[in-house]
């Protein structure tokens, strides 16, 4: 029995898988379990008075889904829409949100020993939304807590916070 328990523990490692994508020159990773699907970018329906990074709403098989451009949100120098621009559809607490990124790279398993704590940096990103950094040889992954990032007050993605109508 004892031996078996050990074996089971080894079988369920703390290795988590991340979907990695590019925003400008930076590479980010989010928990793959939050990702519902990946789609090409189609111009959504604009919403008046929404922040610039909310591109609008789109039709996802009959469901109306808001589209957030993470590049605008995180202050990338350029946010162009080309054929390689993709939308990552996230399923966060039974709400569905699409985020626009420059490109999706791959799905990576990160062992615990390659994780580094998040440094204190000033930037356009909420520090609490960065879970840590992932070191993969020469590459550095910024691991995002996408739940926190999307539910932040400044995202204006749900009705709990009121944005004054213009």
């Amino acid at each position: 029995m004892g031996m078996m328990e050990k074996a089971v523990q080894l079988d369920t490692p703390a290795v988590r898988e991340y979907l990695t994508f590019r925003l400008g020159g930076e590479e980010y990773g989010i928990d793959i379990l939050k990702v519902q699907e990946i789609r090409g970018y189609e111009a959504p329906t604009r919403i008046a008075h929404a922040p610039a990074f909310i591109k609008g709403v789109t039709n996802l098989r009959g469901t109306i889904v808001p589209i957030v451009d993470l590049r605008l949100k995180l202050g990338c120098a350029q946010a162009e829409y080309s054929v390689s621009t993709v939308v990552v559809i996230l399923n966060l607490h039974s709400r569905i949100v699409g985020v626009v990124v420059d490109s999706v790279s791959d799905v990576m398993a990160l062992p615990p020993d390659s994780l580094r704590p998040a440094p204190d940096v000033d930037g356009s990103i909420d520090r609490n939304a960065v879970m840590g950094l992932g070191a993969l040889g020469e590459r550095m992954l910024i691991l995002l807590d996408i739940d926190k990032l999307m539910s932040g007050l400044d995202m204006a993605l749900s009705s709990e916070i009121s944005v004054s109508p213009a």
Partner: protein
Amino acid sequence: MSEMHQESTGSGDSIDLSQFYQIFFEEAGENLDLMEQMLLNLKLEEADDEELNGIFRCAHSVKGGAATFGFADVAELTHQMESLLDKLRRHELQPNSQMVDVLLESADASRGLLARHQAGGTGESPPTADLVHRISVLASGGSLAPSQAPAVVQVAQSISSQKELPMPSSSMSMAIEKPSVQGLRSLEIRIGPLDKPEQADAVLELFRDIAGLGKIVASASDQEDVRVFAVETTSSNDDLLDLFEFHVSRALVSIQVAKDSGTSAPAGYGFFDVPDTHVEPVSYADDPPPGAPLAPLPGFGIFDGSPGAPVARDAEGSAQASALSGTKVTPATAGAKAVVPAAQAEAATIRVAISKVDQLINLVGELVITQAMLAQNSRALDPAVYQQMLVGLADLDRNTRDLQESVMSIRMIPMSIVFSRFPRMLRDLAGKLGKKVEFVTQGEATELDKGLVEKITDPLTHLVRNSCDHGIEMPADRLAAGKPEIGTITLSAAHQGGSIVIEVRDDGRGMSREKILSKARERGLDVSDQMTDSEVWQLIFAPGFSTADVVTDVSGRGVGMDVVKRNITALNGTVEIDSAEGFGMKVSVRLPLTLAIMDGMSVGIGNEVYLLPLSSVIESFQVDESAVNTVGQGAQLVKVREEYMPVIEMEKLFQVPRFNSDKCNGIMVVIEADGSRVALLVDELLGQQQVVVKNLESNYRKVPNVSGATILGDGKVALILDTAALVRRSRH
């Protein structure tokens, strides 16, 4: 009324309630189930108000329904439960396990009683006097003596007799399995003979890894190569065998009901399994199971000896025993057992979560869009070459439409659900007012979206009440006016095109034009004698307006008609009034058939498309520069037939980007909401269409001046404008 689907008349006294029995039985069953669940989860020391209120509500609902349908025994029992629960939720009493036991028992007894009624009142009714007494003792703060503990069915475990049954196969088990097994079962599982008995230990892992599978404890085995486990599970033998098959061959596994009846279910479980009368199928093996005693599992036997202790469990064991040996079972439980199977008669309806239906509607909507796209793209094809494909597409078109219609009809329920509450209300009301009223309903079978039915009930109640209070005269007055003594109120429903028209008619005194006009002047409303009748009638929708000479406790306080109008407008509906003084009055409510579908007018602003609910669109016209004036800080007014209306420039309000200025701001669309009108300045009218209304807030948030969204034929999302918000905005 020419399109009346079905006509039926019924006076207030003779309404047939039996058609609602089935719904009541279903709901009562659900309430009792819910109550049982909540009672079982109730933490006695720290029961929170929410839970207690929830349990109370369940009992209350069952009681209310039972009283309405005349099931006095159920009503009496649930009334007692309600009294006890009421004291608990008011914190006059502290909940204890005795109460929970008695309440659970009462819930079971209620089920038994209901089942008896459902079966047409045949069969012996389970006695409830004892329960009622015990509840009242508890409710008065007393405590039950142990002797009052529920009659416990003591049945000798005679499973051993099975072993004598001749069995054909050798060392493998014959699984005679019922598809689903309710309740917890204690099993003894033997695995072997194996070359390496350790293999069998893998099933321990299974139980640990699969949440909810149950508990397993290894037992002593009489053979070296055989492993024996004591298992507590709710899964069926087949399920277990399927799982084990990953590790050991199915043929080597033998599952038997544990002989040792020292196993009782956790907290009160087994006792309430009483309805479970099926005989547990057991697998038989020719070699007798080893007599090794089962290791006692945690949680067993805790309640032994305490009042309301779980019955020596094993519903299957006892049922089997009584079946085999004819053991007499105590009457209280026997009654319930005999009756309950009737309740499991097949239900003609199923209750499904609305979200599932909505998802279906969504998917069909998608299908319709795809189908429309295919139809569009195939139009250019040469019929001679692609004949088969075109025929296929035509079939697809028809099937899609049929499918959409059927799916939509799932949400539709007949108006009789609403109508049925009025006869009783009118009877009471007429009695109170000393009036004589006959109530006639027409078109009860007309179907309406469930969401709408719920929202239309209150406004309709108000209208019917108004008719009785203000419309119908006293019998003496009616006779003096040469009318029959008994007044008639007619409630009718009918489909007209894509909407439903509900009318409330009475043959009472009608409304007096002069009286309304003078009341309006008193209140300082802007009126003139030149107003048309229908304009005058619309005045009664003004807030606080009442023409009643006496304010009764029924109506006349002037709260009402404005609320009625507002509620109906909120459903994209309209209200019209027709009245002739001395002859009666008719209020027609026109509603869309469903909230999920709306008649919309699409307008273009820049490159964007927005939708207006057609019901609030009054007119549209080309802008004439000279008719537009500005006031103050540039607010625009447009003159329409001697009336100045505020203009809302949609382009500015919605920050529409402009790429080309050729088709610019050509059209004014006049919309009305809450009795006010505004003109919307748009670029062009694109057309009318039925659209499926989608919620914007389920994944996003409320957007100012937008009530929802829809998906256009090309798959793009278009926003639906909130006309009420637009009108409100222009007022500020």
